[in-house]
């Protein structure tokens, strides 16, 4: 299967299963196309008009046949629906213990940030054989993260996080495309995913410009913006303490509650009035336009680390 010229490389754990489904649908498509074409050609020749005043007998139709050719497509699409949906569901959630990388799309480049602090543009280094979860957002318009060799694709939206995961099974460099039209140089929003041996990846992470970890960068942003003035650790401030909050249920002033995940932290930074923690006043200013998406991600990483100080964060289950 690998050698077919009409097939993209299979370089992730799910590529093979997606291709099997693809080939199955291709087979159905060819079968029915050939079937219909053959029948039409056969009838065209067999029942060609032999004299101008030929008047064939009328045929009303046939209930058994109608039932048959309603049942056959129904059966086929039922099989396809079950097969494709179960595959999709299986691939929807990243396996526990996936390593995380954060991706920001922006006209017209891909920026990636590793928790250890490595940052890169239009390249994404990942280790072989380890599930990688990407948390993605956009600084401007809708982009779409697409790696054909991995058979993964997900829109990258402004104003919210989306995520996808993959586990590379092949060393090498693979195309990363933007698959959602995003303006003048959409076609140039191309990057590479570079799959490395795990130990090489560790070396790569350690090498280059020694950047701060995202957590450290986040602590700095936290300090620079004076967040600690209100969010005092012992809970006596004007805002709630952030210790041990991440990953937990937070009671809200409207009586509901929300899990403090990436999306909630992000929303609280940019639209603070949306969900107010019970017992606090809606006084926090919005940081919309003042923080870059990368700074927001750093802050999320920092708040996440504060969460770990008391409790282990739960495997966060986003849609």
């Amino acid at each position, binding site marked *: 299967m690998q050698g077919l010229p*009409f097939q993209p490389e299979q370089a992730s754990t799910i590529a093979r299963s997606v291709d099997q*489904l693809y080939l199955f649908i291709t087979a159905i498509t060819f079968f029915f196309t050939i079937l219909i074409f053959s029948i039409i050609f056969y009838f065209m020749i067999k*029942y*060609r008009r032999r004299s101008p005043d030929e008047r064939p007998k009328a045929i009303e*139709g046939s209930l058994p046949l109608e039932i048959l050719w309603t049942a056959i*497509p129904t059966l086929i699409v039922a099989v396809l629906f079950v097969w494709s949906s179960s595959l999709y569901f299986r691939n929807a959630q990243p396996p526990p213990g996936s390593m995380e990388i954060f991706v920001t799309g922006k006209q017209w480049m891909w920026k990636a940030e590793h928790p250890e602090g490595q940052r890169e543009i239009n390249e994404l280094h990942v280790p072989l054989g380890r599930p990688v979860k990407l948390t993605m957002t956009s600084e401007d318009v809708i982009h779409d993260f697409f790696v054909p060799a991995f058979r993964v694709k997900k829109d990258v939206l402004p104003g919210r996080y989306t995520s996808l995961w993959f586990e590379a099974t092949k060393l090498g460099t693979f195309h990363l495309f933007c*698959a959602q039209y995003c*303006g*003048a140089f959409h*076609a140039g929003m191309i990057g590479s995913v570079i799959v490395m041996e795990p130990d090489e990846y560790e070396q790569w992470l350690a090498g280059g410009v020694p950047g701060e970890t995202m957590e450290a960068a986040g602590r700095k942003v936290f300090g620079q913006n004076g967040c600690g003035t209100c969010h005092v650790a012992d809970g006596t401030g004007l805002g709630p303490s952030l210790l041990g909050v991440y990953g937990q249920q937070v009671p809200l002033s409207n009586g509901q509650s929300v899990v403090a995940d990436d999306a909630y932290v992000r929303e609280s930074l940019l639209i603070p009035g949306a969900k107010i923690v019970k017992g606090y006043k809606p006084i926090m200013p919005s940081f919309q336009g003042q923080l870059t998406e990368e700074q927001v991600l750093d802050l999320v990483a920092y708040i996440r680390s504060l969460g770990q100080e008391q409790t282990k964060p739960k495997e966060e289950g986003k849609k």
Partner: protein
Amino acid sequence: MSTATQAPRAQAPRNYLNADYGWRSWLFTLDHKRIALLYLVSVTLFFMIGGFFAVLMRIHLVEPQGALVQPETYNKLFTLHGVVMIFFFMIPAIPAVLGNFLVPLMIGARDLAFPKLNLLSWYIYLVGGIFTLYAALAGGVDTGWTFYTPYSSTYSNTQVTAVAVAVFITGFSSILTGLNFIVTIHKMRAPGLTWYRLPLFLWSIYATSIIMTLGTPVLAITIFLLALEHLFHVGIFSPALGGDPLLFQHLFWFYSHPAVYIMILPSMGVVSEIIACFARKRIFGYKVVGFSSVAIAVLGFLVWGHHMFVTGQSVYAGLIFSFLSFLVAIPSAIKVFNWTSTLYKGSISYEAPMLYALGFIGLFTMGGLTGMFLASLATDVHLNGTYFIVAHFHYIMVGGTVMGYLSGLHFWWPKISGRKYPNGWAALSAVIIFIGFNLTFFPQFILGYLGMPRRYAFYPAEFQVLNVMSSAGASILGVGYLIPLIYFFWSMRYGPVAEANPWGATGLEWQTSSPPPTENFAQTPIVTEEAYAYAAKEETSGA
């Protein structure tokens, strides 16, 4: 279909074409047949404009770095190609040209229920078209025909507002046409013409009209909100203004997926008429084919989410939309099986309309089957946003809709113009279009599977071979489209005069002279039998 009264086929016929020659008699006409011709001229014009953009795109894509224009210009080309072809050619093509001409004739009426509204529809369409052309000349628009936010509303600095206004305006033309057809089909059928005696073309026009009247207002609202955000920064779709970027896609596809059925259902109706005529058979399973049109129209409103499988919408929403999308495959398959079975034990002749109609079945079958890849969640994730999508919808819209439209135009041309065209050339063009079409779009399926995203002004070199193949095919396709244009023009002056019923077809439109008189029928016909009464009878059928 024999009728109790025959329209008089008397001497030197006075007809709707020679009734008056002044320009006022065309621009202020209330005759549905003349309005159909106004539409014919305008949609042909827009087809050529849209086709011109396509030609430039295919030339540009011959080289990986782009052979012709700057990326910004390329983006405007595919946007205008989409906008012009969809809103100004495909949506009005069959309903407004063939539907306008045929609906009253097929039901034995003098005109549509609201002739003035009908003329107004054409003027509205024209105003929308002029806005689009203005936008094209004033710098163009680069959002893609899908206008996705927030790119369109807050980032693009091209003529978004002008095009939004154009689409908004043209929508009303669709709504009024749909309304007119619904009322006409309900209220003005000739005595004896019951629902189950209606030609299947009318069933599909009826289903289409329902989509037009119910769906188009949603598009109008969506486009209006888009313009509000674009002009006045009212935060609706842009997250930076507090809006929701995906809301636009939900609203847009709520109309634009059913719009695909606005384009394909009338073609299905056309093909039903033609298969029956040239096989001299009743359509196999008449009621099933009729109701499958209605089923497609209804289901079409419930599948918009399949355009959004990779947007991060809930996996459960994806599941439901996938399921419903698969359901649409069933009535579509049923139609194909029934058309094929209509040929069984028929008496088949191969004039040009029939070749076009058979080409439609072939291309629609392939287009429909490849839809299964996209209804399947797991494969759609890979194929969404790639050339696979481009290939798929061109098989449906160009392979389906345009083949069906040309098929119908060839079938009813003698009725419309009173002249015949050279059948040999027409048959040749049908074959050229079928081959050229496949050469153009089949390579795009492979390109998409290999991972080439759509809307790329330049691309990695490994995709070049398939792109060149596609462009080469497009040049053949282009020739195929030019030939009919030439012989239709030729036939208007030089074509042999057509008799009232050159194909020996049933249907009331063939009972009156070619071209029909302004009042269509001298006396209202009375219908005594079903559509497609082609079978041998004791008394030979009229015409």
